[in-house]
């Protein structure tokens, strides 16, 4: 319930603006200044330093016709869809955690879910690389042990073009980054006992309670997570860089837009073109977020 302040009442309320003065200043200086700099440079052939040659819309024209960039957006779309599916598990975990009767054990679980979050991301990457390693990796080892493939056969998880993307999607199983779980839990714990009692009196089953009470009530959190997930997925490139190198795997099959920026700017010295791709990512992310906010409405 926000306080509506019209222009007329501004005389009494203008000090409120000071609340955001400092963050606004920081954001303008440390975020907008470099970003605007980047926007301007998409019209330049720019090596990041002294060479600045105005070329107008040449890069924009090239971006539109860049089949590799188009492919990279297709790849990232797959990752976004996959990540939407992956959101189910953390929701389930949070709900189940919320329902664990024994408080002590439930509490213990919560702590345990946070602990793996502490593992440095690099460790995860190193370990998953070994998981997929074709000759002695644990995955092929299990397939051999269960007789799915012969003792000297291998499945090339990260080099067979057909398997690269599925392998990347599966990576990080069970996908319960504590952020999701904790944020849902915080939402779930806001549901009052009365609602549960009412549901129990109505004789509602667990599924009904989940779909009719819990899910609608954590929609705020689901939406937050959805928006953040889409943004971070579209911008992500580090994992693919570390797993498959700057070329995005065999034949560039897993190239994503963020990695293209990195490659164009730092490997090929085309900072201007990197900025142009950055602008495209910006526009796409913005559009998706606006659509998401329209579709996933929160019913209170």
């Amino acid at each position, binding site marked *: *319930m*926000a*306080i509506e*302040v*019209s222009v007329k009442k501004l005389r009494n*309320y203008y000090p*409120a*603006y000071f*609340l*955001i003065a400092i*963050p606004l200043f*920081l*954001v303008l*200086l*440390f*975020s907008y200044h*470099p*970003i605007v700099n980047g926007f301007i440079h998409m019209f330049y052939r720019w090596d990041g330093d002294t060479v600045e040659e105005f070329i107008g819309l040449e890069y924009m024209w090239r971006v539109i016709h860049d089949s590799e960039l188009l492919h990279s957006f297709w790849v990232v779309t797959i990752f976004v869809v996959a990540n939407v599916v992956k959101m189910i*598990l953390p929701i*389930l975990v949070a709900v*189940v955690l919320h*329902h*664990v009767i024994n408080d002590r054990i439930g*509490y213990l*679980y919560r*702590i*345990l879910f*946070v*602990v*793996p*979050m*502490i*593992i*440095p991301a*690099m*460790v*995860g990457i190193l*370990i998953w690389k070994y998981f997929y390693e074709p000759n002695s990796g644990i995955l092929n080892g299990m397939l051999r042990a269960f007789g799915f493939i012969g003792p000297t056969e291998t499945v090339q998880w990260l080099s067979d073009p057909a398997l690269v993307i599925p392998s990347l999607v599966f990576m990080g*199983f*069970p996908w*319960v980054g*504590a*952020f999701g779980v*904790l*944020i849902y839990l915080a939402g779930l*714990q*806001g*549901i*009052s006992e009365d609602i549960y009692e009412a549901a129990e009196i109505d004789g509602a089953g667990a599924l009904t309670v989940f779909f009719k009470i819990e899910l609608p009530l954590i929609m*705020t959190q689901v939406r*937050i997570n959805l928006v953040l997930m889409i943004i971070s997925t579209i*911008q992500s*490139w580090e994992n693919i860089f570390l797993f498959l190198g700057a070329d995005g795997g065999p034949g560039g099959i897993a190239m994503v837009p963020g990695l293209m920026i*990195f490659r164009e*700017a730092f490997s090929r010295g085309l900072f201007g073109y*990197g900025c142009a791709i*950055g602008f495209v*990512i*910006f526009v796409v992310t913005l559009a998706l*977020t606006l659509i998401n906010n329209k579709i996933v409405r929160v019913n209170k």
Partner: protein
Amino acid sequence: MARVVRSRFAECMKHLFIVLILFFAFVPLYLMVNISLKDNLQFALNPWLPSYPFHWENYVYGWHQIGGTIFNTIFVATTTTVLTLFFAVIGAYFFARYKMPGSKFLFGIFMLLMMYPAVANMVPMFKLIASLGLYNTHLSLIIPAVAAGQAFNIYVLRNFIEDIPQDLFDAIEIDGGNTFWQIWHVVIPMSMPIIGTLGILSIIGQWNNFVSPLLYIRDSNLQTIAVALLNLEGEYTKNWGQLMAGYTIASIPLIVLFIFCMKLFIRGLSSGAVKG
């Protein structure tokens, strides 16, 4: 009686489900600790199970490499987190409680930030930091991170503050509370769980961030732990045991911190106060 049995069965299934998920979530942690006690040969022959003898000297080496950076990292991570959340709570309060002329536009300014991929403006950012004289100081890590953190934290916090019942604010206002009184006595207690979560995320993010310290810090006595960890990897040869020992040491302060803070944040939440 049947009902009790059914619910006991259901309870067991819940535990089974959670334990199974936890098992997978803990595999990387297990491997990290396991490998940290091996030498390269043991790792090559048997990376998955413990093997004798344990190489505790890996930890000595790991500590030697990264120990000196721990306090820098605590300082940077904590300062960044506290400042980020301080400004973000106030900012989120502003957007959640006031509909001022221009509110939407200002909110847009913050949110647009999240849409721009950071990798595209690494070079302009470096030039800015160098020109402000922040290069090779901890401020070069703290201030830009506080700025960059505003968008995400305001976005999340605003949603939570909007959900705080009006009655609570009214009650405070009758008592004569001003803005900061309201934030201290209503907003912070009510959104403690989410502030805690955001704090944890921010600390972890800072703890693991190696890009900005690598670019902005030159002196090794100011360096943070993530960069020191990277330095354990050679290009041509890697010593896995030492590497993992280093990562394990780096994780311990975080684990200790969370053992204490989890109580504060998860349990400290008064049930039913934040209504949807």
